[in-house]
Each structure stands twice: as structure tokens, then as C-alpha cells.
């Protein structure tokens, strides 16, 4: 019984970590800048390839992951300067552009590195309990997911960059007239989103097969979570990650990975049907009602 509970707990931590890490980069770019980045999966690809290739070249894993994150950040910053900054406030155009970018990146990866790379082994060994064992690395990933959410919350709520970024997203001209270099804020936010996607790629590089299409396996979770989460980026991602993680873990535990995925997507469809503004939209309307009731 206790082992079953542990199994379910580990399964939940695993789903939660995957959902949150797959989403954060997209959530920052979409939530703060309104850009639907269809190349999000390829940002993750750059992070994963950067990590795997530099590990293959002889770097220790932690350093190789740093290289993966750095490569993705630079990739993102260059794109922002050359392509994305022309497409702010043009959601449809930016979707087409990022989609094209995604196709190009996948094919370039195939041309440059072939159909697969030799894999980094999963580090840290495993935790054994009774007849079961679980990868310790996957538990660490859950810890990292929580740490990433907490640091992002701190960054956006309590630092000067965070305040200026929120002000810029809310009302760009007024922020500019208060002395904020909004171009730099956009660049910084896009760079941050890219770095987060790169981190996801770096962290999952030891656990997934290195193919040029690996980004696609993150894309569904990422978009579903952003939509279910709603307008308030970080709180939405955390809550939606928790909710979808529970559904995914429960059904995976009962009936296997495939049914777990089906159940999660069904739950997402229901959630979007019932809460068109997402989970944070529901919270906002509760708050508004309570405020009205208080007066």
C-alpha cells in the first residue's frame, strides 16, 4: 500500500516536473509578450543538442548543461534582434514566422548532426524501495521545477527588472515615458524565455532520445498548460502543472503512459471548456466577487 502511494507520488513528481519545465519558457514569452512561439520545441532542441554535443566533446555533465542553456539564450537573443522584434503586436505573423523557424531548425539539425546523437546516460542512479526503484535524477528534476517557479516569481515580483517588465507588458508607451528602455525589456524577457527553454532541453537531454524532432514531445504539454493556466503566467503554470500532473500521474499509474496522456488531454479539454479564461481567470473572478461582496 505504502509502495503504491510512493509510486503514485513519484509519478506525480515526474509529470509535474515535465509539465512545468516544458511550459515555463513558453509561458514567459507568451504570457509577458503575447508571442505564440511555435518554435518553442526547437529552443528546447537547441538546449538538448548543445548539452549532448558538449558532453560528447568531453565536458562534465553540469558544465555541458550550462553550454546548452547558453547556446539557447544566444539563439533566442539573435532571433529577437533579427526577427521577433519586427513582429511584436502581430500575433498571426509571429506564429507563421516561428513555425517556419521551427521547420528550418529541425532540418538544419538533421543536416548538421544526422538523425540521432549518441546519448548522455541518466546520472545519479536510482532510489530503491521494496520491489520498486525510481530514478533519483527524476526526483531532482521535480525539485528544479519548483525552484525555477519560485525564482521566476521572485524575479518578476520583487526586482526592478520584474516591475519594469510587468509595466512594459501592461502599457508600453507609458513605461517608455517613465524612462524605461522597453526595447531592452523585450530583449531581456525573450532571452529569459529562451534560457528557460534551453534549461529544459539541457535537463531532459539525459532522459530522451536525441532526434531532431525531440522538441515536438514537449510542445503539447507546453501549450495545453499555458492555455489551462490562463493569463497570470507563473501562478497559472504552477496550478495547471499541478492539476494536469495529478490527472496524468493517476491514470498513468492505473492504465499506463498512453492512457495517462489521453486522460490529461481530456482533462485539459474539459478545463478549457469550463474555464475559458483558464485557472487564473477563475481565481480573478472569485476575487472580484469577494471584493464586491465586501463593499
Amino acid at each position, binding site marked *: 500500500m505504502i509502495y503504491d502511494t510512493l509510486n503514485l507520488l513519484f509519478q506525480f513528481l515526474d509529470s509535474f516536473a515535465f509539465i512545468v519545465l516544458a511550459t515555463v519558457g513558453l509561458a514567459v514569452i507568451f504570457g509577458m509578450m503575447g508571442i505564440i512561439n511555435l518554435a518553442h520545441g526547437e529552443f528546447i532542441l537547441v538546449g538538448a543538442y548543445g548539452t549532448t554535443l558538449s558532453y560528447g566533446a568531453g565536458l562534465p555533465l553540469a558544465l555541458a548543461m550550462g553550454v546548452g542553456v547558453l547556446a539557447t539564450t544566444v539563439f533566442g537573443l539573435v532571433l529577437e534582434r533579427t526577427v521577433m522584434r519586427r513582429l511584436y503586436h502581430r500575433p498571426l505573423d509571429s506564429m507563421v514566422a516561428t513555425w517556419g523557424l521551427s521547420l528550418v531548425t529541425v532540418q538544419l539539425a538533421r543536416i548538421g548532426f544526422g538523425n540521432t546523437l549518441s546519448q548522455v546516460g541518466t546520472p545519479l542512479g536510482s532510489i530503491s524501495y521494496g520491489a520498486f526503484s525510481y530514478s533519483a535524477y527524476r526526483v531532482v528534476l521535480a525539485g528544479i521545477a519548483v525552484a525555477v517557479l519560485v525564482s521566476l516569481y521572485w524575479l518578476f515580483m520583487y526586482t*526592478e527588472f520584474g*516591475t*519594469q517588465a*510587468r*509595466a512594459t507588458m*501592461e*502599457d508600453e*508607451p*507609458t*513605461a*517608455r*515615458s*517613465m*524612462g*524605461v*528602455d*522597453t526595447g531592452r525589456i523585450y530583449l531581456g524577457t525573450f532571452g529569459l524565455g529562451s534560457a528557460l527553454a534551453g534549461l529544459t532541453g539541457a535537463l531532459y537531454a539525459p532522459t530522451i532520445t536525441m532526434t531532431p524532432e525531440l522538441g515536438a514531445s514537449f510542445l503539447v504539454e507546453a501549450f495545453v498548460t499555458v492555455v489551462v493556466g490562463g493569463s497570470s503566467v507563473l501562478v497559472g503554470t504552477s496550478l495547471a502543472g499541478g492539476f494536469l500532473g495529478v490527472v496524468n500521474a493517476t491514470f498513468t499509474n492505473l492504465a499506463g503512459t498512453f492512457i495517462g496522456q489521453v486522460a490529461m488531454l481530456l482533462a485539459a479539454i474539459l478545463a478549457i471548456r469550463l474555464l475559458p479564461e483558464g485557472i487564473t481567470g477563475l481565481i480573478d473572478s472569485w476575487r472580484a466577487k469577494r*471584493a464586491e461582496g465586501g463593499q
Partner: protein
Amino acid sequence: MLAIEDLHASYDSTPVLRGVDLSVDEGEIVGVIGKNGAGKTTLMKSVIGLLEPDSGTIQFDGRDVTDEPSDARARGGMGYIPQRRDVFPSLTVEENLRMGESINEGGEARYDAVYEYFPILEERREQKAGTMSGGQQQMLAVGRALVGSPDLLLLDEPSEGVQPSIVAEMSETIGQMSEETETTVLFVEQNLSVIDALAERCYVMEKGRIVEELAAVEHETVATHLAV
């Protein structure tokens, strides 16, 4: 402090400013009066740099800022208070004020003075700006620009959408503040009581041009210019 010469500006391709000349000396409080559609807000947006002029020059503090982006002008010492109290609604009062810190780079942040002029802002520090009343939001917009101790305060119709009793109180506070901190003020307005209370001299604006300069602000003359 501020000198505008032959300024032309347009929205899309509709010309709005058709050759504006005006100047403001250090320490002065100058009003630009005119009816709706005269181009007052466009003038303010051009001065702070949110609208690129078609031609003409804007000199601020002895240097040509015509081609400077708006954030550089703000850091150079212009404190802009947008029309319709454009505060950041989802930021708290304190966070809104903190946004004003980047105005006039290197200047000291004056929270104490701002809280003294507008005690309500200190009381409501933690509250989201969007949940405050119109008058309080206008005070916040003024406070936000004052925090960075600007050299020149640009006020775009401070009375718009604010209760008359608060309008009077606010005009008085702004006048007092300008005197105490030696801040130059340029404001545009069509509300007679604000013009009476605040302006030392004014320009009359009509159809995108300055048509008259009033060295002294006399109630009757101003009223005639604003009458429909």
C-alpha cells in the same frame, strides 16, 4: 528650459500640429489652453517623444531632443503625466511609484515628499492601482512623475475625469510643489479652474497652432477662448 519651434506632427496622415512655437523658462508654470481637438494631447506626446514629429525642433535643457526616444527624454529629466491617469492598473501603488524612479537619472528618489503631498498614496501603498478611484489614480500619476524629481513636469489635462473638489486640491498641490521644488511645469487643459489656479501665463491653441499668448491669466479672457 523648453523651446519648441515650428513643430508639425500627425496621426497616420492627418496633420494635427501645424507649426507650434512655444517656450517655457526655468521655474515657470505655463498652460496651453484650447478646446477638444485643438491638438493639446498631441503636443504633449510630441514633447515627451511618444509621437515622432514630421518637422520642427524640440530643445530641452539646452540640447536638441527632437530625435531622442521617449525613455531617454524621461531619464534626461522630463516627468510626464499622461491624460486619463494612465497608471499601471495591475501594479501596486508602490510599484507604480517605483517606475518613476528612472525619471531624471541620477536624481534623488523623493518618496517622502510625494507621500507628504499625497498621504493617501502612502496609506494605499500595497493596493493595486487599478482598484483606486479616478482622483486617487490621478494623484498616483502625479506622484509617480514627481518621485524622480523631474526638471520639467508635463501634465496632460489633469482635470479629465476627476471630481471638481479633487481638481481644486490637486491644482493647489501641484502649484505648491512647483514652488517648493523649483520644478518647471507645462500643462495643457481646458478646465478653467485649473488654468486659473495654476498658470502664470498661457498659450491659446486652436487647430494645431498657437494663436495667442496671454502674459497674464485673466479669468474672462481665458473663458472667452474656451467658450464654444
